[in-house]
């Protein structure tokens, strides 16, 4: 269970990205986070694995206080939280397999990383994850030789290498065409349903939300403006979330 309590983030420039946000995510849920660009979705997700340090508030995960974790504890927490990014964030010049293996770094002793050494089990595991997302044949290509959809699959394989209990997906399909978007979302859904991994996924398109999410939270200017089932988003709620002039597309 992930509990977010009164989370507030104020950036150095004084921008209030999150304003007293509180919600809970039970284990194994697929939670969609929606809202306009700049509403604080990315900040929220990054606060959960402390890529961004929140200004105030608390995040508890299975009772452990993430916001108060020491660097050593943070390493142990982060390796259980996979993350998938809008722009994939692969290391372009490295091979696909190396990118996937990087997901294991939270477990590997840093001294061995100096030698660029992964154990045999990790190598096998990496190939297995690539098979799972259907691009095992690309293992030895450079990451930037892959198409967008393939790169995002590598991103998912990297997250899977972590044996995650939770995956944070920051607009994972915003840079992909609709067909690819569905195939990527299906991978996330499968991981969520089959492995019981909690997924927090920020999304732009409501039809994707309806199709894949168990529950939705919506942010507007850093504030939590909606929490509930995707079916409950009617026109009025929609205008609350996206502003009065917004029109539904797709």
């Amino acid at each position, binding site marked *: 269970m992930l509990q977010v309590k009164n989370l507030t983030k104020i950036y150095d420039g004084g921008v209030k990205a999150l304003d007293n946000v509180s919600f809970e995510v039970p284990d194994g849920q697929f939670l969609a986070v929606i809202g306009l660009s700049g509403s604080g979705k990315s900040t929220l997700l990054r606060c959960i*694995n402390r*890529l961004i340090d929140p200004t105030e508030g608390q995040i508890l995960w299975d009772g452990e206080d993430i916001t108060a974790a*020491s*660097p*050593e504890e*943070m*390493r*142990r*927490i*982060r*390796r259980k*939280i*996979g*993350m998938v*990014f809008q*722009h*994939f*964030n*692969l*290391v*372009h*010049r*490295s091979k696909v397999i*190396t990118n996937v293996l*990087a*997901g*294991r*770094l*939270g*477990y*590997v*002793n*840093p*001294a*061995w*990383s*100096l030698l*660029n*050494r992964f*154990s045999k089990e*990790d190598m096998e595991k990496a190939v297995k994850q690539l098979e799972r997302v259907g691009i095992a044949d690309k293992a030895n290509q450079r990451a930037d030789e892959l198409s967008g959809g393939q790169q995002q699959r590598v*991103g998912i394989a*990297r997250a899977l*290498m*972590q044996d995650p209990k939770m995956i*944070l997906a920051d607009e994972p399909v915003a840079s992909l065409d609709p067909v690819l978007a569905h195939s990527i979302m299906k991978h996330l859904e499968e991981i969520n349903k089959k492995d019981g991994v909690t997924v927090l996924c920020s999304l732009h398109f409501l039809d994707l939300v309806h199709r894949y999410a168990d529950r939705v939270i919506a942010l507007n200017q850093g504030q939590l403006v909606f929490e509930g089932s995707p079916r409950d988003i009617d026109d009025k709620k929609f205008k609350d979330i996206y502003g009065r002039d917004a029109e539904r597309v797709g």
Partner: protein
Amino acid sequence: MKEKKSSAWKSIQFGLAVLLGLFVYAYGFDVTKVNLEELRSERRQQSLTRVTRTLAQPDLITYDKQEAIVNSPLYVPCPADNNLSAIPAADTAAAYLAITPACANPGETVQVEGFNFPPNIIGPIRFVPGSDPLNVVTLGRESIKTDGDGHFITSFVIPDRISEEPQHIRVTISENVGSPRFTQNAKDTWDKIIETVFMALLATTAGTILAFPLSFIAARNLMKSVRSPLTSVALSVLGWPIGMGLGYYIVNQIGIFTIPLAENIFTNLISVAVTPFIFWYAVRWALPQEEIKIPSPSLRLTRLLVLFIAILVAFFGFFQLAGLATNISLGIEKALGSFGFLATFLFQVSDILRIITPALGALAAGGTLANFLGHLGQRISEKNATARVKTTNLILAALAGATVLGLLGALVEWLYQVGQFEYTFWAPVLIGAGLGLLLAAFTQPKDTLPTGMVVYSITRTIVNALRSVEALVMAIVFVIAVGIGPFAGMMALGLHTIVSLVKLYSEQVESIMPGPLEAITATGANRLQTIIYAVIPQVIPPYISYTMYRWDINVRMSTIIGFVGGGGIGFLLQQNINLLNYRAASTQMIAIAIVVASMDYISSVLREKYV
């Protein structure tokens, strides 16, 4: 109306700017003493022509010479009876001279005609005093030039040497025989240009190796997020000097312990073969590749102990390796013959290994202890109550401040030899302690300090300061430190390479894509792992490119570093210019041009291929 005014104002501004520009350039002309009059003066033009012509004939190729002399007798003055019968008829089959008249008084002119000489040659024509035709003493400074048929005719003024015996006029012909060969100067140039290229190579290599790790701590984007609480900072500041002292002492002791063992080549061989295995297995046990559970404290302690022993064994192995290299090099130097430089190389490498091992040990121990104490500090400030952390901070910060300023004071004492210990040591210690106390008193005990930015600023400052000192100036210092020669030049170029590459490299690190960095951090990788897996792959191509560029610069620099005694071809060039030996200097200039141009070409080809 308003527009008009502004346009007038603009014209005035423009006019003023033009005037200012004129003024600047006029002053520039004055300062740089632009003077074309000098260029037009006849004296200048003559010497310029002479030097240019000499430069156009580089001293590069020579031939073996074969000299032949052709003598022809004559009387000076004419004998009293005018009997010239003592003069034999010339052998017209070979080269011969005909002198008319065959006798003359001093100061008179005779006509000398030569036949059957080699065509189109120049040779000296001399008067040989005394009756001996093989006399080496000759008079005169004229020369003859034969035509296409090997014939010449010239007039010769008889010098003031009188004798009753027939004297001689001699023409010396020298002919090139055999194939052309390089002059001594060409060979020297070749030697020195090789020296130059390798000087640049070694300087670039050493510079790159050292600049690589430094470039990461001089990159703002990596260092900005490094923050730690005061307890941790103070403890690691204390850890560095203590650790370095301890490390140096311990490794030196190992060295002393090793020396008697290192003389025997069999002990060497066994140690060098065995220690890596011990080290490898110990490290593999002590540092498991992956660890899911948190190990128990006793296991952790045992691991630390094993690791420590493994490292001691490794240093023992290093010393033995150095000993082995020395022994081998001494043994094989004679057997290698002209490849003896390989043995010398081995010997020097072993010497370097022996010198840097204690330094390495000191650095490693300092780093480890500082790191360990830093972690300890982190824990102390996390697990204890604020008031207790504050007290700890006050004590530790005072100690750390005292240590840092005390060490700085000791440096000042060594540099300026003030000799008053109370000012150069105790005063800084007190000030440092005071500053530490102030820092601890005015910061929140659990707040983190921007340690990364402090380290970044210090590194950047040192690098920028050193970078502004030209390699040529550094070479002067190193010439004093290690003596005249290419080694001094290499050291100077190497140091300059380090500081310039640190700047260039770290700018590359600062411009990497932040996405992968974020992604790798999110997997739980620590800072070192993030650098290895997210930063290094992104910066390798520009690093290669900059290294090549630097090698290029180093080759160019090393051609002139000899001017200040730094070895390489510059030494030769300067010598020849000072001796006004422009033909030799020309050879060296051509060599430099060829090397620099081909380096330019090679590096551009390689850059295109790999980047």
